[in-house]
């Protein structure tokens, strides 16, 4: 029972991280109909930026809460630049091209980002000293003590806050409306006087910012990162987006939580070596039986 609870807590924490990345996938797919293969590597860049920021702030004597906020903002801003640039360089020129072209371009960008970070930062893994320590302990007298760390609470709270701000953004603001319009009919939206390019750029910026937050959480939670984490996290987050229904933002977060739980429970109860296979298998199984995900909008091609 206690072990189960611990896995649950861990799974939800991990799931929040995946969910934040998954939102980026689902938003981009919704608005320009392509899978942004490089999105996972944007998450990786966010982790590195956060890592560097933490190291620099450790040399100062700024208090922890302020450091956290600053690192959050710094990671978001700089990573958003990456997302914006990738879109402008590799996707925008191919908007009218055939289906495979932006996919290949995205693949190329992914390779570029991974190796660029490897070249700039070195191939070795990077470690970060724990930033937030301690937590609550439950069931102290039983065989297995359940820990809910402050860090885990922090991650979940940040995720909830961002989701709230973000959902308000999508449903209440003009930008959100413009985004939803672009998802439906890009040409018509442009004819209505909305700057489609800017809307698409904003989508990438927001998606990348969220991925940056995920990166920051990741580096704090695991304490170890390298240039390759984007690849794995990317596939899992994409699985999450598909699970929740590609195009649905709450679906993406739900899918993320689900994948986090699946991965954690699998590691906890079955085997750690094959935990990545658990995520991949989920992806395959979901797509076979639910080609449009659990909460997704069906994709009917007009005949």
């Amino acid at each position, binding site marked *: 029972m206690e072990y189960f609870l611990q896995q649950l807590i861990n799974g939800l924490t991990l799931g929040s991280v995946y969910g934040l990345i998954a939102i980026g996938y689902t938003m981009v797919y919704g608005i320009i109909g392509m899978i942004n293969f490089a999105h996972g590597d944007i998450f990786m860049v966010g982790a590195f930026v956060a890592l560097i920021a933490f190291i620099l702030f450790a040399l100062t004597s700024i208090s922890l809460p302020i450091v956290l906020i600053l690192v959050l903002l710094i990671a978001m801003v700089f990573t958003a630049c*990456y997302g914006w640039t990738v879109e402008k360089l590799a996707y925008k020129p191919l908007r009218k091209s055939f289906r495979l072209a932006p996919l290949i371009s995205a693949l190329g960008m992914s390779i570029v980002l991974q190796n660029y970070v490897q070249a700039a930062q070195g191939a070795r893994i990077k470690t970060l000293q724990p930033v937030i320590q301690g937590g609550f302990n439950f069931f102290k007298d039983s065989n297995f003590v359940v820990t809910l760390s402050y860090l885990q609470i922090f991650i979940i709270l940040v995720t909830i806050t961002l989701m709230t701000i973000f959902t308000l953004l999508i449903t209440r603001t003009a930008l959100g409306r413009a985004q939803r319009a672009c998802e439906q009919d890009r040409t018509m939206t442009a004819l209505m006087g909305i700057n489609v390019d800017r809307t698409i750029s904003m989508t990438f910026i927001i998606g990348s910012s969220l991925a940056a937050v995920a990166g920051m959480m990741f580096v704090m939670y695991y304490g170890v990162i390298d240039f390759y984490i984007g*690849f794995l996290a990317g596939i899992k987050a994409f699985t999450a987006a598909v699970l929740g229904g590609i195009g649905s933002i709450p679906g993406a977060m739900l899918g993320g939580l689900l994948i986090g739980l699946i991965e954690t429970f699998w590691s906890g109860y079955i085997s750690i070596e094959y935990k990545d296979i658990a995520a991949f298998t989920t992806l395959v199984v979901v797509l076979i039986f639910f080609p449009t995900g659990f909460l997704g909008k069906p994709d009917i091609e007009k005949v």
Partner: protein
Amino acid sequence: MGKDLIQKYLKDSLFTGIVALALFGPIVGLRTVAKNEALVVQPKWFVVFLIVVACAAGRFLINIYQFRKEQRRGEQSSFGKAVSHFLDEKGAQIAIGAIVFSVIFPFMPFADRYWMDIAIMMMTYIMLGWGLNIVIGLAGLLDLGYVAFYAVGAYSYALFAIHFGWSFWICLPIAGVFAAMFGVLLGFPVLRLRGDYLAIVTLAFGEMVRILLLNWYELTKGPDGLTGIPRPSFFGLPFKRYPDEGVETFHTFFGLEYSSMQRIIFLYYLILVLALITNFFTIKIRRLPVGRAWEALREDEIACKSLGVNPRNTKLTAFAIGAMFAGFAGSFFATRQAFISPESFTFIESAIIVAIVVLGGMGSQTGVVLSTVFLIGLIEVFRDFESYRMVAFGGAMVLIMVFRPRGILAKRKPTITMGKHG
């Protein structure tokens, strides 16, 4: 060019510079280095400065170039057009020339061990490219996990050769059949998925195979890999310097001095023949109904269905045949290396082969050769530059897609003409 325009371009360059600073400042400018168990930050501001200036200047030059291009509207990328026209016209002659060259290659004066190894590697990629060309180029199915079939071919060959001692010529077809069966197994549930989804699922499959190979120690010896894979023989004559008692070797049979190059040259011709078989098979099958159906499916699946074409079986056939050729290539790889491990079968291999096919021009056999030479050449020439060469590789993928999305050789010739029969 007026002063206003120059001012606009300068502002543009300034903006580019600022973005470049944001991009390269943290990641390049603040390198984390391990010192005594902890990480410290090593500033590299000069490098960042150079990069930012280069970006700003580059942007300025690009703006000017585009302005000039606008002015000379008539000539549209005349260079590009001339090159593709040349390639289209002389396509057949180039192909024959390339085949002749590759046949006499080992006897050229500069063909030493180093160059032969590169040639063998290129030929292997060309074969893989031709195999994947069937799946992506002809049938339009985006398979990002092709390396899985390569791995199945290599491992099944190795296991049969090591445990049963069968010869190369028996194990090769078996490995191909295995890989094809794998292709059907993998393809059956997922081939009806739409382009992007199929891509991600096949990517996941590729990774699953790699993880299985890495962890299933009893069968595959995991990360240690399989060693002692029998080396190839010349139809029964081994390539040994010191033969066993009473056994004829290649060099004694032909009355030659022993040279380690003999085995290498044999391997080269082996992969050349395998690749050419793949090529001729593809050219032939394009003219048959199933090949035509692949291309039609790629163009418009709904129209195909309205004509009674069975999409699932047609796609499965492409997938299985592509997998089979990857299996053959994998067998060759296993016997050439005499040692295989999961490290050789990572996602980046799938990505390279996909890049080869798409950059070459979907469906174009000659295009595959050209893009292989270019891309693998790029990777080899810059081998000393490690990660930078992969940045260049990825960058090449993006650039070619942006400027020439249809690939190097994009023009398609019909596989059957009325002119011949009319």
